[in-house]
Each structure stands twice: as structure tokens, then as C-alpha cells.
């Protein structure tokens, strides 16, 4: 086997080794931690891009860690969707990590260890082709996220983390029930094999299969923070440290990814008794999520809470597009996913730059001390605000335009138009008001001893550059997401590659 055939497992192995080095080399070796973490994150980005190039050419990489022939043993599968998620994760992780190295990682000893283990969980969840393995990677990314959320300590973080941990433990229990039911009915856990077997089930098993599917929707919906399950997010993200909040921008996308993966592969239109299990559910849920989240953004009294609500709204937007379960809808949703992840990361980091200069770490939307660098922070905030609302010329506009173009000329399509456009206006008003208060309605003097941004602005500028690149390269990226949607809607190729068919 050549080295290249191991490409699919590298995004899990590299951060795992880096995380272990950081755990073992504990103590006062922060430069070492930073170097290991930086090298690892860069390497993961490189591998992810290589995977995207190879899968973009139509290849589907199947890696069998135990060399068991399919459907036995655990498999890792890199298709276009997985590669796309890996690239986005690595980009956000790199920016968050660089931001943390300018001081945020000094509040405790294990920041980089947790950070790398979080990457293991995220990358594993995107790559695995096995339902139970997905559960295991979920737990890895969750326990790392608990530690990262608590990182820095303090009352607010402890309160938020308590809710977050209890909710996710209950979610894990539901996940096991869902996976267990699916195993009980089909006798397999390999997603491709489950997909084949679900299609062959007798109609008498329909209730069980659909029940399992809806349980999984609840679990993934909890991760993605959709309508009745989003209450944990604004508090948790508003109280996390900035680099952690920026990295968590990708956490909700794990839920979105799982919804796309499981409900196109296992519960697709060809799935016999399980066919189109969530088709009637996903679009209404997504629209209600959007609606409520824009309201929350409008009512928020702190910038970070507002960004949290805008994040939920963006999840609603992409799920509405994905909920159409058409080629154009999924492609538009995936394009918007890349854009909104980068944007939310930018905004969380800008909010931190801003809160530092206002003194006492406050991001409350009230008149406060003048910023000492209003031009630099203001420009970054302005770009982030344009992007998150979806105004031209940035990619958010292109994404939303694609989503609206993908909407069918039916009642649900008109609802999609109405909610998305009204919501965008509400978001525009909300974030404009926040900007006016934070940058213009200030006191005449800056806060005493306000720190300058210095190197902290660099990762943010990097992310903004990535946003601009996403806009300029909209053509190639859209053809990639469209090809990914094609691959998802024709799961036969995926299934035969994994099962090693003819």
C-alpha cells in the first residue's frame, strides 16, 4: 500500500498524535504545545485539501482500518461532502488556533490538547461510515468540547457548561436508542449496508425504521441547534472563550452534516419502508428555527449572544435548503454552510477584539468606552455583518440567492422565500443597531489600559480573506457542491464502493 492510500485516516491520526504529545508534555512548555498544535492543524488542512482534490475528481476513498472486507469492520469513507467538511473545519480550526496562541491559551495547561482532541472527534465524525463509530466520535468531540467550553473557568462558563453537558448526555442516550433500533431491525451498523437492508425490509417494519430515523433526527437536531432544541446554544457560545466559540462555529455543522449524510443515504427516496422519513419535517423545522433565531438576534442584549442567534438562523437557512432534498437545494445549502461557518467564526473573534478594547471584557449592547482602533475593528465587523446578513457582494448573498433559486414554485417554496427574506431584513436591522451602539454611541474616552489588537487581528483577516476567496471562486466551489449533491442523491456509488461490490 502506498502512503497515499492512508490519506483518509490521517485527519484523525494527526491531531490524535498531536493531542497526546500535548497531554504528555504537560507543564510549562507552552511554545512546544503551540508548535505541535500549529503543525498538526496545518497538516490536517493540507490533507483535507488533498482529499478534496482527489474526491473532487470523482474518486471515493474507502479506508478499512481492520482490513475486514465490507460490510464487516469499521470503514472510513471520504466522499466530496466529507472532504468539504474537513476543509472547512481545518480552516476554522487554524484561525481559532492562531488566535488562541496570542494569549488565550495561557489560562490553563491543556488548551492545545483539548483543541486537537476536538479535531479528532470532528474529523472522525465526518469520515466514518459506521453508525456506532459515529456515536463514538460524537462522544470524543463532545467531551473535548465540554473541556473547551469550561476553559478559563468562572461562574458563567460553569452555568452554561452544566446545561450543555446534561443536554448532550441525554442526547447521547437517544442516539444509542436510535442506533440500537436500527441495528435491531437491519442487523448492521455500516451505513451503506444499513441503506441496502432498509430498502429490503417488509412494510411491517416501517414504524420501527421511521421511529429510529426520527430519533436520529432529534439527536442531530440537538447538535445542529434547530428549533425546539437550540436553547443551550446562545448561552454556551456567549460564555466560551473567543477561539473556542470560533471553533464551535463548526460544531452545529456536525449535526447538519449527519442529517445530510444519514437521511440521503439510509432514508433516501429508495429506502422502501423508510423512504423520505424526514421529508415532511425538515423544511418546516428549519423555517421555524430561522424565524425564532432572527427574533432572538433582534432581542439579544450582548453581541456574542446575538452572533449565537445568527448562527442558529444560518443553520435554519441551510437546513431549509437541504430540506428540499433536491440537487440544487443541497448544493446551495452546502455552499451556504461553508460561508456561514467562516462568517460566524469571524464575528466571534471580532466580538472578542471589541470586548477587550471596551474593557472589562464586555460585549453588552450599551454605550461604552471608545475603541482605540475603531477603524480596524470596525472594518472587520462591517465585513462580518455584511456577510452574515447576506448582502452583496459577499458569498452570503450568493448562497442565499442560490437557496432562493432552488426553492420550488410551491407553497413550501414561497414560505422559504418569505422567511429567508424577512429574516434577512431583521438580521440587518439587528446587526446595524449593534454596530451603531458599539462604534458610534461611545463615550469620549477609551477604557483605561485597553489592549491594542496587534497580532490578534491577523487570523481574523485570514478568515475574511477566505470569505473573499469563497466569493471570487464561487463558480468552482458551486460546481464542487453540486457534484457533492449529485453524489449524495445517487448513493449507489457510495454503497458499492463501501461494500466492495462488483
Amino acid at each position, binding site marked *: 500500500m502506498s502512503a497515499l492510500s492512508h490519506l483518509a485516516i490521517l485527519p484523525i491520526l494527526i491531531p490524535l498524535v498531536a493531542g497526546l504529545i500535548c497531554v504528555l508534555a504537560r507543564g510549562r512548555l507552552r511554545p512546544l504545545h503551540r508548535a505541535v498544535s500549529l503543525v498538526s492543524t496545518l497538516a490536517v488542512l493540507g490533507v483535507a485539501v488533498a482529499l478534496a482534490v482527489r474526491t473532487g475528481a470523482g474518486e471515493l476513498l474507502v479506508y478499512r482500518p481492520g482490513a475486514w472486507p465490507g460490510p464487516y469492520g469499521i470503514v472510513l469513507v471520504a466522499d466530496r461532502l466529507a472532504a468539504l467538511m474537513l476543509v472547512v473545519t481545518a480552516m476554522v480550526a487554524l484561525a481559532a488556533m492562531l488566535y488562541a496562541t496570542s494569549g488565550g491559551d495561557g489560562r490553563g495547561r491543556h488548551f492545545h490538547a483539548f483543541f486537537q482532541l476536538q479535531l479528532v472527534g470532528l474529523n472522525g465524525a465526518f469520515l466514518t461510515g459506521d453508525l456506532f463509530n459515529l*456515536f463514538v466520535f460524537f462522544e470524543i468531540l463532545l467531551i473535548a468540547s465540554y473541556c473547551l467550553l469550561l476553559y478559563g473557568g468562572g*461562574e458563567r462558563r*460553569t452555568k452554561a*457548561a452544566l446545561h450543555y*453537558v*446534561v443536554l448532550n448526555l441525554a442526547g*447521547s*442516550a437517544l442516539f444509542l436508542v436510535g442506533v440500537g433500533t436500527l*441495528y*435491531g431491525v437491519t442487523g448492521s451498523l455500516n451505513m451503506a449496508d444499513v441503506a441496502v437492508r432498509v430498502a429490503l425490509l417488509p412494510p411491517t417494519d416501517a414504524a420501527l425504521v421511521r421511529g429510529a430515523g426520527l430519533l436520529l433526527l432529534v439527536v442531530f437536531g440537538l447538535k445542529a441547534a434547530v428549533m425546539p432544541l437550540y436553547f443551550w446554544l446562545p448561552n454556551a457560545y456567549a460564555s466560551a472563550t473567543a477561539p473556542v466559540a470560533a471553533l464551535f462555529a463548526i460544531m452545529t455543522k456536525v449535526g447538519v452534516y449527519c442529517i445530510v449524510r444519514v437521511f440521503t443515504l439510509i432514508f433516501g427516496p429508495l429506502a422502501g419502508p423508510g423512504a423520505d422519513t424526514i421529508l415532511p419535517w425538515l423544511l418546516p423545522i428549519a423555517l421555524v428555527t430561522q424565524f425564532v433565531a432572527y427574533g432572538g438576534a433582534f432581542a439579544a442584549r450582548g453581541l456574542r449572544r446575538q452572533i449565537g442567534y445568527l448562527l442558529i438562523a444560518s443553520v435554519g437557512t441551510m437546513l431549509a435548503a437541504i430540506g428540499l432534498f433536491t440537487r440544487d437545494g443541497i448544493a446551495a445549502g452546502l455552499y451556504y454552510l461553508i460561508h456561514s461557518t467562516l462568517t460566524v467564526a469571524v464575528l466571534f473573534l471580532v466580538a472578542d477584539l471589541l470586548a477587550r478594547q471596551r474593557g472589562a471584557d464586555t460585549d453588552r449592547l450599551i454605550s461604552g468606552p471608545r475603541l482605540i482602533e475603531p477603524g480596524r475593528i470596525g472594518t472587520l465587523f462591517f465585513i462580518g455583518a455584511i456577510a452574515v446578513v447576506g448582502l452583496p457582494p459577499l458569498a452570503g448573498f450568493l448562497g442565499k440567492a442560490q437557496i432562493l433559486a432552488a426553492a420550488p414554485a410551491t407553497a413550501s417554496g414561497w414560505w422559504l422565500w418569505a422567511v429567508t427574506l424577512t429574516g434577512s431584513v431583521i438580521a440587518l436591522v439587528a446587526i446595524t443597531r449593534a454596530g451603531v451602539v458599539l462604534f458610534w454611541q461611545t463615550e469620549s474616552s477609551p477604557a483605561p489600559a485597553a489592549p491594542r489588537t496587534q497580532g490578534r487581528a491577523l487570523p481574523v483577516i485570514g478568515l475574511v480573506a477566505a470569505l473573499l476567496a469563497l466569493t471570487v471562486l464561487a463558480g468552482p466551489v458551486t460546481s464542487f457542491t453540486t457534484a457533492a449533491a449529485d453524489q449524495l442523491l445517487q448513493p449507489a456509488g457510495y454503497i458499492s464502493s463501501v461494500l466492495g461490490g462488483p
Partner: protein
Amino acid sequence: MAFLMASAIGVLVAAGIFLLLRARTFPVILGLSLLSYGVNLFLVTMGRLRGGSAPILVAGVTDQVDPLPQALVLTAIVIGFGMTAFLVVLALRARLTLGNDHVDGEEPDA
């Protein structure tokens, strides 16, 4: 046997959910533990309930039972144990940092 298993799972999950909805961290942790016991039992039964059969291939024994759910449940138990340990420490930390054991971190107004 099936009735016994089903009622055991039902009672565990019901008690777990009841405790999960309490306002103090200690009952919540107990509730999550009971819930995970119920789920683990559920996972075991997904391999079908058959007494006295072997989970591995042995020459001469034809009565086999699916071994995979047992492996799954072992994984789930280990993960659940780790998570519970983490939650216990977090609850203690919250009690020390916040000065109370309410799940919201503050006493509700009387």
C-alpha cells in the same frame, strides 16, 4: 423473559427521566445514570433474547447469539462511565463556584 426485560427498561428509563427533570444536580446525575442503564439494556436486547446460547463460534454448538450488541454495550458502558465521572466533577465544581447545587446555577426566587 421478554416481558421482564421490557418492563425493566421501561422502569429504568421512566425513573431516569423523572430524576433528570429535577432541579438539583445530584438527582440529575442519578437520572442520567439510570437512563443510560435503560439504554444499555435496550442495546443488549437488540441482539434478540436467547438464553443459553454461545456468542462465539464453537465446534459442535449450533445455538449462537449475535455477539455484536454485547461489544456495543461494552463501549457504551465505558463511554457512559467516563461521561458520568466528568459530570460528577463538573457538578462539584459548580457547587463550589456558584455556591448552590441548582441546575441553573442560582436559586430561583422564592
